[in-house]
């Protein structure tokens, strides 16, 4: 029977590295997704993801189950990513190459070539528009979009109230809508 996150945490705290590996296995893609949504470079996102799990391991002893494991790990990831984002000085991530590769890999070939082109344009402009949001607005939209986290969970991760999450989401969505209207 699959162990719960909390059971795995307790095993980690007892020194079982395998338990921590299982937690990494469960959450590495989700953490990477959140971090990538906040940062611009793939390499930076990978670096921050590794750092997130490293710090989580160091701090696992202090995790007492007051929150769920995923909000705890996301909080670590978001804090590191926001710090990294503030130091970042590079150009925005160019998703075009990766999207082509992904489309081929997933065999997504639209019947309507114009529809395919519009989607491609939407993706490119969406990435650009997301990168133009502030770190705080980017964080709420990414956490909500990827994980479908509740306002309460997002507030816990970001250290703000549910009302703040709601207003930031509303603002971020309005901004994205305004910038992407012609592609939607």
């Amino acid at each position, binding site marked *: 029977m699959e162990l719960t996150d909390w059971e795995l945490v307790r095993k980690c705290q007892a020194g079982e590295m395998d338990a921590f590996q299982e937690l990494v296995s469960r959450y590495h893609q989700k953490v990477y997704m959140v971090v990538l949504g906040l940062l611009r470079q793939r390499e930076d996102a990978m670096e921050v993801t590794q750092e997130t799990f490293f710090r989580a391991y160091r701090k696992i002893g202090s995790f007492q189950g007051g929150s769920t494991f995923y909000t705890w790990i996301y909080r670590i990831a978001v804090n590191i990513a926001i710090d990294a984002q503030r130091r970042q000085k590079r150009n925005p991530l160019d998703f075009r190459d990766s999207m082509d590769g992904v489309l081929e890999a997933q065999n997504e070939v639209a019947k309507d070539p114009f529809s395919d082109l519009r989607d491609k344009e939407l993706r490119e402009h969406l990435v650009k528009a997301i990168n133009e949001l502030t770190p705080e607005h980017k964080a709420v939209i990414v956490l909500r979009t990827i994980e479908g986290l509740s306002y309460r969970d997002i507030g816990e991760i*970001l*250290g*703000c*109230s549910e009302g703040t999450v709601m207003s930031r989401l509303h603002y971020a969505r309005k901004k994205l809508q305004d910038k992407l209207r012609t592609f939607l």
Partner: protein
Amino acid sequence: MKRLKKSLSLVLLFSLVSIAVVVGGEAAEKVPQAVQVTIRTILAGNKSDEFDPKLKDMEAQLKPLKYRSYRSLKDDGQSVPWQGTKSFDIPGGRTLTVVPQEFQNNRIALKVRLTQGDKPVLDTTVRITNKGNFILGGPPHEGGTLVLSISAAAQ
């Protein structure tokens, strides 16, 4: 973030209060209305080994002059407005005239003139620390030597 915001609000309040306290104190010192000038007239000599107890606070300043005795003759303090003139009687028919000039960087600039009768003996402009002093000595008097401690404190 909420905790940080709360902490920062309290910190801001604390800083504002601290700044108000400090600025209030500084403001009081920044605009002195007048200067309290004090002249202590001391007779230094070698005829005895007396050290006047009244001069205890000045012992460190007087001992290096290497006289054997020090006696306080008079203490005279007066409030002098900036650019105002005040004269102090000094034994031996002398007069010490003091003009506070300006207050800058916690220092008081004093123009000082020592006259013997109506003859100028010394003119000097000295900047002393607020509430500090300097020594003017050398004029002979009654077998000893006059030592004047000139101090000023902004009011």
